[in-house]
């Protein structure tokens, strides 16, 4: 079991001394990252995701806990003794070196023979499709090209683990989408373990094998994108990943009772005692609007998004609910503000969370 674990973070804690007392950047985080997986650390800024990445890279040492790579404790090793490479958010390409020299830097430092350095560099240049730019300086490249060079430079020494610190955040939307595919392709082709840091939940969902959602220096949930999206462990995760409706309710037998007095089926009821106050999470796309006798609701607003139309609804008790409906060919959903509708939820769509 342990031999397919690449990075094993054990109760890693990182405390910084600031003028206003100590800041806990990482609060006893434990996580196991498997070999060859695309693992994403997702969270808002200041959640500790970059700190965790820097601990693995070796730029910072943990205040407590340890970090194992392939079963060996590397906590005390400097970054230049760890078979781990980083793609920096700012790319951090060497401005005085050409693209080729940037890429061969790591191989040279490892003392590889000259012909091997040249061969590997050419290979990686080919891999990121930058062969034509090999003799340019980083400043002569566009953002997307610099990104590819940064990737190539980190991949060239064939690290055990590749760390990516929000590498796509500086790119425009179209280029970002392109690079997402590119990254995924590179990861599959090289088989290297990727640890990817992002605050973009969509990026995390589309690219990752597994995602760890972080907040305030802790990991809240680890799982594959589907698990995280469909079964968030708490309100923060549900809210951070995608859009979610939250409704207050109480446990009533095997169902939950809403403030409107209606009862609906929900998953996760068993974990709570009868009468307990809970929060329900329902994804907007799982809300159905029809006239088949569900919850009574009034349309407050319709917002057209092209493929979807968002319907802002008000329930009987005044609580709000958003439904995401596929836009019809005409684009007109045929409901105007004030219309009375009835609302129901797709089977299994209602999640019970702690209040």
């Amino acid at each position, binding site marked *: 079991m342990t031999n397919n674990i690449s990075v094993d973070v054990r109760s890693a804690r990182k405390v910084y001394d600031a003028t206003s007392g100590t800041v806990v950047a990482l609060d006893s985080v434990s996580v196991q990252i498997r070999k060859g997986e695309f693992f994403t650390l997702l969270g808002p800024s200041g959640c500790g995701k970059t700190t965790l990445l820097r601990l693995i890279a070796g730029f910072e040492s943990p205040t407590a806990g340890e970090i194992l790579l392939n079963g060996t404790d590397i906590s005390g090793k400097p970054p*230049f003794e760890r078979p781990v490479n980083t793609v920096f958010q700012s790319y*951090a390409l*060497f*401005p*005085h070196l050409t693209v080729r020299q940037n890429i061969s*830097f790591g191989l040279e430092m490892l003392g590889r023979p000259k012909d091997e350095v040249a061969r590997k560099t050419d290979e990686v240049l080919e891999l990121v499709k930058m062969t034509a730019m090999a003799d340019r*300086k980083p400043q002569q490249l566009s953002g997307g090209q610099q990104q590819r060079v940064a990737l190539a430079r980190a991949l060239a020494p064939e690290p055990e683990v590749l760390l990516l610190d929000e590498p796509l955040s500086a790119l425009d939307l179209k280029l970002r989408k392109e690079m997402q595919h590119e990254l995924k392709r590179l990861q599959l082709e090289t088989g290297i373990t990727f640890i990817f840091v992002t605050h973009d939940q969509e990026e995390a969902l589309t690219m990752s094998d597994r995602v760890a959602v972080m907040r305030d220096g802790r990991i809240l949930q680890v799982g594959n994108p589907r698990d995280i999206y469909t079964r968030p462990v708490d309100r923060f995760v549900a809210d951070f990943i995608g859009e979610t409706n939250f409704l207050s309710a109480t446990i009533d037998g095997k169902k939950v009772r809403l403030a409107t007095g209606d009862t609906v089926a929900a998953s996760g009821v068993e974990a709570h005692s009868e009468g307990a106050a809970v929060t329900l999470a329902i994804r907007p796309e799982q809300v159905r609007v029809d006239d088949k006798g569900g919850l009574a609701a009034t349309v407050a607003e319709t917002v057209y998004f092209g493929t979807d139309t968002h319907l802002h609804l008000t329930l009987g008790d005044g609580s709000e609910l958003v439904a995401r409906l596929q836009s019809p060919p005409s684009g007109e959903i045929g409901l105007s503000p004030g219309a009375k509708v009835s609302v129901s939820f797709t089977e299994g769509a209602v999640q019970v969370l702690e209040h």
Partner: protein
Amino acid sequence: MAQTAEQKKAREGWLLSLPALTLLILAASGPLIIIAIYAFLTAGEYSGVIWDLSFKAWFQVLFEKDIFDGTVSLADAHLTIFWRSVRLSLLTTLLTFTFGLPTAWFIATRPLKQRALWLFLITIPFWTNLLVRTFAIMEVLRVEGILNKILTGLHIIPEPLQILYTDTAVLIGMTYVYLPLMVLPLFAAIDRFDFRLIEAGYDLYAGRLTVLRRVILPIIRPGIVAGSILVFVPSLGAYVTPRVLGGGKKMMIGNFIELQFGAGRNWPLGSALALILLLIVGIALIFYVRASASENKDG
């Protein structure tokens, strides 16, 4: 159309700088022309020049004729002075760099608010006259001076060191005087340096010294070159420091030139020496322009 009018205006604008240009041309090239002419004239008996074309001064730069038998030999004393000047200037540049790099690094890595204070402290020595500061160094270095008192008092050395009136004293003095000229351009270069590149270097298996050699130094090279020129050029022509700390015995080119216009009563030789000094400085500047030009081309 508007652009042409603007261009015309810009072309005519240089006329406004005419007074300044005139002053610069007269003040800079005037003395230079005089020196260039004097170098090819005959020395007057007591001072000044006689208006006779002569290459004797240039001959005297390197050779001397024995007054008794008229044999020509290399002017060892002159060569010693040249060699001392170049050697001490190079050593001064090296020492200011050795002390200046950590200093500039320290300042550049302070929080933004503290940096101004540190830079201000670096410039404080400029507030006092160079001569006064040089005499202060003399006070530190002399046999009964502070340095020797401390060293003998702590029994680090049994006898006071004779540092004053040696090359070492001149070197110490010049390093002290020109250190800020090295620190400031180095600071400017390090200030622009992206410190994340150090992490990138470590990440790519370069140790600390390798990162210094392969990443930091090449990137701050313009600052190193600028600082070296700013230190080397005035060191080469230094006058006050070698005069006071070298005690008139350990002359550098500057003192030697002064000697020709004073007690030596050989203005043409002084002029020729001054032109040679100018030539050496010119070569150093060409090296600087080349170095910064190739940097721009690379960048």
